[in-house]
């Protein structure tokens, strides 16, 4: 549910900074989901394949790292955008039109 809120927010929002917040929201919701499912299925999976028990939790770390990197780059892009058009409204980015 958090994921879906994040998606809708990305589609609707005009302000670039809020857009990034929604993206962060999506990433973190995914983290949450992974951990939860890992705990939920831990008993059943361990019988079949021992290493799978805490696979998802390891993956969460990767996602957090990626999120951090991506936020830094994204904020840099927003700063450049502001310097060029003096606004953070994404509707002004239509130079690729036609």
């Amino acid at each position: 549910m958090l994921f879906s809120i994040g998606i809708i927010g990305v589609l609707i929002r005009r302000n670039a900074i809020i857009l990034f917040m929604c993206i962060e929201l999506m990433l973190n919701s995914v983290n949450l989901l992974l951990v939860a499912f890992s705990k939920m299925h831990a008993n059943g999976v361990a019988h079949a394949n021992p290493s799978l028990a805490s696979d998802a939790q390891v993956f969460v770390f990767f996602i957090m790292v990626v999120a951090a990197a991506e936020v830094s780059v994204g904020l840099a892009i927003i700063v450049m955008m502001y310097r060029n058009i003096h606004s953070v409204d994404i509707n002004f980015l239509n130079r690729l039109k036609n």
Partner: protein
Amino acid sequence: MWVIPALPLAGFLLLALLRNYLPKHLAAFIGCCTVFISLLAATYVFYNVKAGNTHVAHYFNFIDVAKLHIGFDLKIDQLTAIFLLIITGVGFLIHLYSVAYMKEEEGKNYAKYFSYLNLFIFFMLLLVMGANYLILFIGWEGVGLCSYLLIGFWFTNNNYNNAAKKAFVMNRIGDLGFLLALFWLIAKVGTLDFSTADHKGVFDLLDQLNSFEKTGITLLLFMGATGKSAQIPLYTWLPDAMAGPTPVSALIHAATMVTAGIYMIARSNVLFSQAPITQTVILWIGAATALLAATIAMKQNDIKKVLAYSTVSQLGFMFLALGTGNYVAAVFHVMTHAFFKALLFLGAGSVIFGLHHEQDIRNMGGISKKMRVTYITFFIGCLAIAGFPPLSGFFSKDSILLGAFEQQHYIVYGIALFTACLTAFYMFRLLFISFHGKYRGTEAQWHHIKESPAAMTIPLIVLALLAAIGGFVNIPTLFHGKLSLTAFLSPVIAMEPVAAIEHSTEYMLMGSTILLVLVAVLLAYKMFKNYQYKEAAGLGKTLENKWYIDEWYDRIIVQPLLAVGGFFKNIIEKSGIDGLVNGVGRAVNYSSRQIRLLQSGQIGVYILMMVIGILVLFIVQLFL
């Protein structure tokens, strides 16, 4: 042996390639020389064959596919030898004649003319020297092509071009039948060779065909012959072909090309003898054509048209002979017809040349005083074609009539006899109107008329001699003759022995023929001695307009074909195919414009697209 066709081919190549640079006399020299040397070679070959040496030469494998092997073979036997002499002999005389006739052409066209003539001789020689149906067909098509080229020689005139096209297209229609017959032969017998040493030729394997196939093949071959040799229904091209120069008419449409059909059927005599239904068909079509053409010739006003219809009529006689199984008589008539028809055509050409290209006999008259040699030779030609003894036409025509009578085709005999009378009538009508009476042109023109140059009169004299004595090669037993031609051709042409009729009946038939012909000539003399042109009416008008057959063909065949063509052009081509091609273009244009709108440049829309795409992939992988 290959020298014979190779020389005219070399002549053609030389003349065609160098025609812009050759002076007139050199072009004429090359053209005539090649044919003359071929003539010498042909005479040598003839004597060889007479001594009994027939010859087949295999040059290279022409077609070698699966089980079908057709070689490029040339063969000389008795039938070929005779035709070789006719072609090269008459051909050479006509080349000589053309030297003077075409003098007014400029150098380029002069050389072009001789190159076409040489090419024609080459193809005709190939036709008669082929050892299988395929080589014959190559020559067949080639002479059709040369006919087109030569008829439309003065190509600046659109009417001439149409005549040339008509000749070629009608020829082609006949060729369709010929090709179908060839395919059938290949399918059933597996070979096209006439007859080979190890008995594998078509004529040796005839037992493999049942009678339906024999009839079918021969009918299709005959269809080819009707196109080439101008029988009903494919004869209308020949009168229009008079648009070409007169020597062309003499060569192609009197002596050689139109006899190709006769040659082909004579060559295949074994096959045709076993298909009696086809023979009846040939017989009746030949008789009908002879009669029809003779009636039309009676009312024509152009010298060459009369002679053209006369050719069609005489060809009808030849096919009549073929239909009765009398192949030797047909070949005999080919020979004599080549002589006197070429003579008549060249004589007409001499008249046209002397009167500065006047072809309408209504404007002639009384020329005999001014052009004596032409008159005398033309007169001899008329006598020959009418069948006066002892000229050649008498013997050949009589053997045809006799053959019809012996086979008890009495109605056909009657038709042939009547047509012979008509022949005499219209030929002498032509003679009297053109040469006797009072000159119907102006006084100034009368002064300009003089006899043609020697290059033209010498061939006339030679041909007149041949027309006069040519009949003596096949004197029937009636006159204690030896039937030399029949004996000569007997290895090639198998004639069934016929119940001979009594000598007295023969005498009576001959006598009645001569008498009727004489009556016809006298009638013509009385009617046309002092000719004044009157507008034709009634039956005469119909005859003058060729029984309106051309108009019928136009209405029934040509106009519907043009309409179909127009339909295809306007509806299917313009609306259909063009619409389709243009439509594709327009559709692409439209769709591109619509899709362009997607590129709004707004990243919100782009992200939406991305999300939608992921969703779609999700759903799809759920189902698959």
